[in-house]
């Protein structure tokens, strides 16, 4: 998982990440989804 204000779909593909979030809260939402919390 990668994150930050500059991240978008292209950077996700370029880095081979599974998912990205624009801010910390998006990261929390993703993590919850992944661990099913």
């Amino acid at each position, binding site marked *: 998982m990668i994150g930050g*204000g*500059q991240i*978008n779909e*292209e*950077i996700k593909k*370029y880095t081979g990440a599974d998912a990205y979030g*624009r801010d910390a809260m998006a990261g929390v939402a993703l993590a919850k989804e992944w661990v099913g919390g």
Partner: protein
Amino acid sequence: MAKAPEELYQEREKRVSDAIQLKVPDRVPFLPFFSFFPAKYAGISFKEAMYDYDKLAEVSKKAIIDFQPDMYLNPYGLISVGPTLEALDYKQLKWPGHGVDPNLTYQFVEGEYMKAEEYDAFLFDPSGFMIRTIFPRICGILEPFKMLPSIPSAYYLRIVPRVAVLGIPEVAAAFKRLLKAGAEAQRMMAEARSFVEEMEELGFPTQFGSTGYAPFDYIGDFLRGTRGIMLDMYRNPDKLLEAIEKVLPIMIEGGVAAKRAGIPRVFIPLHKGAHGFMSLEQFNTFYWPTLHKLMLALIDEGLTPCPLFEGDYTDRLEIIKDIPKGKAIYSFEHTDIFKAKEVLGDRVCIRGNVPASLLCTGTPQEVRDYCKKLIDVVGRGGGFIMDGAIGIPDEAKPENVRAMADFTREYGVYH
């Protein structure tokens, strides 16, 4: 027959001015906001660009001639500040070769340069507070300025003991070093002026005559720090609002300097008003009112405010729409620029927003595809200027910048 530089200069001015006034120009203007890209493109280090005035002129000229922007960004104000900052022992920034790798861009040093309990001191006398409290914190050589007396206290014969402070060896030494920094800055400014003249002779106008700042960002970036000002919105809202109002005339005065420069466009980079930093209610309370007043004051002076909305403002487009028609340029980064065209298209010229990721990692064809969409949708009927989302990234592939430039010149023609 090739056009004379003066003719090209006038054509470029008119192209941009038509876009600002929401008329249909002959074609979409191309205004790339370069930072260290010309240095990288021409093969010198970022550090050299920051310290060597001649080399900076050389690489900037090369990029301007190779990519033919309709207007260029004078590189001196943002790049060749190394020698003067060094002379000041400046602390609010790390730069290439000074705290940062010689080939990386500069880095702002976040900090609480003004404490929460110092609002009253700032509000009482911003100049005195700046000179005696902030300068000693942000410039190593001005550390002794904290010994300086309050200026208004030097009345009548009290002027003698107050002036005596200047005779204290540390204070005297600080002034001497400050004079040196001043001489260095003068050298740099002279180079900057001669660069403008040289580009004018080649037919290229410059983008901005001065820079302004949203009063909230002034307090948040330079004095309180991001953390400090975010807390102040909850803990100290009244003082914060007072300080923002106090800063407004200072920002107007700085922006109006563009008139003396004879270049009517005022650059206003915006930092903390985005969706990711504050709610709509906070935006309406703390950020927008003074930014709005700043832009209206500049427009009243016959100037063109050019705010760069860094981050995402999609949910606040209706608010920022409140601006006289055809009098400003709004640059967008992550804001949905197509939505921006829908909301703002009949009000204000839009500039942007080829993503940094695309310019750094994409192919020329992908860049052309994105530019096509921008020209087709945002460029429809005029009122659009092509640029990167946050200017041209230092690491952009030259072939992508070329694709952007050439495609805009060819496909961006209005029929």
